[in-house]
């Protein structure tokens, strides 16, 4: 049976060159980077090199990169670290996020609300776009942070970052972006986006899982996320995940070199899938923005079928896809993102997400175009609501 992986938003395979680069740090180079002896210094140099590689990918300088263990940790660090710094400096208690943020941002915001902070949750339009005017209107004198994701992990919509960045800059408010879905996938430059904090994760661009980073612009006052030793300049204590960090660095280097080529290859495949499915299945709708979307993202709603039922049937044909995000899929909750773009409960339940990667082929797209229509037809036949 064929095996087709169309779930890159949940995690990419690890690039063979990343694996190769990591191996010595799982074997002979085992020293602790904080140790002064040569074993430690070899590991320390490897971490420094990776820091430079990640910095270069996003147009930052090395000392602005802080390694963490996941995109979720980076987002928690950004929101909670900024909230505690605002408290320390007596600089207000209001933050602004969008309604379609990843749960690691939304739940951090909700946590802060319970601690006495105030949060504005900005709505989005039917494509999932935040209106920069809404950001400006929500600003208060005591606003210390705006956090808007660069691109949404479900519907793939890319937000108007630079415009929002101009507003936060003008108001002298720190701007954080969860860019886990975009770094290594589309060009990201912290100056062009106008961000002060930015989260990224390695397993979205062919790096290993369990390693990520937070970019913190020099001069931004933020409280450490893990207290302890001197690691990550005192802001994120704990012995470094050296093999993971090395892998993240190499993945960043490869992404920087190949980003345009990967996009050129993926976009036509995605469009072939979108056009093919819209043309061969009735009552199927594309969600997200027609042009401002991630290269590999194709998100649909289907009437009269459960998304999860389609996923199971596709899996039996060897196709890995998702219904909503990896995080909500298991929770059997309808997605807050689809609710925010105004989808009915029924259409939200019938959601189907394909995310393509650099190694997918036209044959794989055609295989999905061949197997999916009969699956949908079969599931609709047993639906009590469907009538042709």
């Amino acid at each position, binding site marked *: 049976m064929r095996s087709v992986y169309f779930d890159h938003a949940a995690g990419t395979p690890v690039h063979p060159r990343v694996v190769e680069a990591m191996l010595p740090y799982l074997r002979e180079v085992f020293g602790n980077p904080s140790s002064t002896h040569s074993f430690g210094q070899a590991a320390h140099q490897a971490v420094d090199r990776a820091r430079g590689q990640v910095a270069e990918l996003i147009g930052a300088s090395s000392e602005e990169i802080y390694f963490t263990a996941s995109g979720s940790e980076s987002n928690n660090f950004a929101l909670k*670290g900024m909230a*505690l*710094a605002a408290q*320390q*400096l*007596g600089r207000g208690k209001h933050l602004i996020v969008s309604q379609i943020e990843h749960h690691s941002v939304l739940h951090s915001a909700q946590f802060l609300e319970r601690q006495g902070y105030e949060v504005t949750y900005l709505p989005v339009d039917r494509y999932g776009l935040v209106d920069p005017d809404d950001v400006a209107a929500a600003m208060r004198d005591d606003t210390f942070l705006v956090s808007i994701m660069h691109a949404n992990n479900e519907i793939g919509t890319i937000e108007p970052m630079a415009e929002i960045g101009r507003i936060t800059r003008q108001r002298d408010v720190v701007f954080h972006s969860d860019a886990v879905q975009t770094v290594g996938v589309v060009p990201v430059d912290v100056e062009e986006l106008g961000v002060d904090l930015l989260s990224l994760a390695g397993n979205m661009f062919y790096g290993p899982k369990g390693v990520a980073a937070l970019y913190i612009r*020099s*001069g931004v*006052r*933020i*409280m*450490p996320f893990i*207290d302890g*030793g*001197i690691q990550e*300049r*005192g*802001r994120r204590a704990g012995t470094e995940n050296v093999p993971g960090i090395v892998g993240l660095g190499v993945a960043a280097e490869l992404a920087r070199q190949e980003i345009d080529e990967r996009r050129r290859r993926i976009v036509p495949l995605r469009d072939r899938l979108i056009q093919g499915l819209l043309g061969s299945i009735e009552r199927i709708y594309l969600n997200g923005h027609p042009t401002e979307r991630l290269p590999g993202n194709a998100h649909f709603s289907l009437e009269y079928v459960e998304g999860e039922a389609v996923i199971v049937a596709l899996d039996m044909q060897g196709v890995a896809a998702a219904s909503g995000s990896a995080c909500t899929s298991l929770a059997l909750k309808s997605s807050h993102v689809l609710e925010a773009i105004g989808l009915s409960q029924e259409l939200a339940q019938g959601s189907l997400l394909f995310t393509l990667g650099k190694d997918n082929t036209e044959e794989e797209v055609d295989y999905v175009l061949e197997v999916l229509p009969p699956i949908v037809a079969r599931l609709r036949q047993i639906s009590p609501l469907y009538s042709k």
Partner: protein
Amino acid sequence: MVEIEADAVLDAFGVLCPVPIIMTAKKIKELEVGQVLEVLSTDPGIREDMPAWCRQTGHQYLGLVEGEGEYRVYVRKR
């Protein structure tokens, strides 16, 4: 308030002592003799720890400016 021109800034915001001192010891290696390092700290312990560290190491403790919620400590490399 004293205004001191610093050649480099070390951000130890929110970091608890003695880590800011360890960070200072590392950072000051990057400076030339005679240059001034500004250490940003929130830990009140810095008020005693930095002069004590300077006495031990021979660097010149220039003073401390207390802002709202943070300290700026100045050290000249010797």
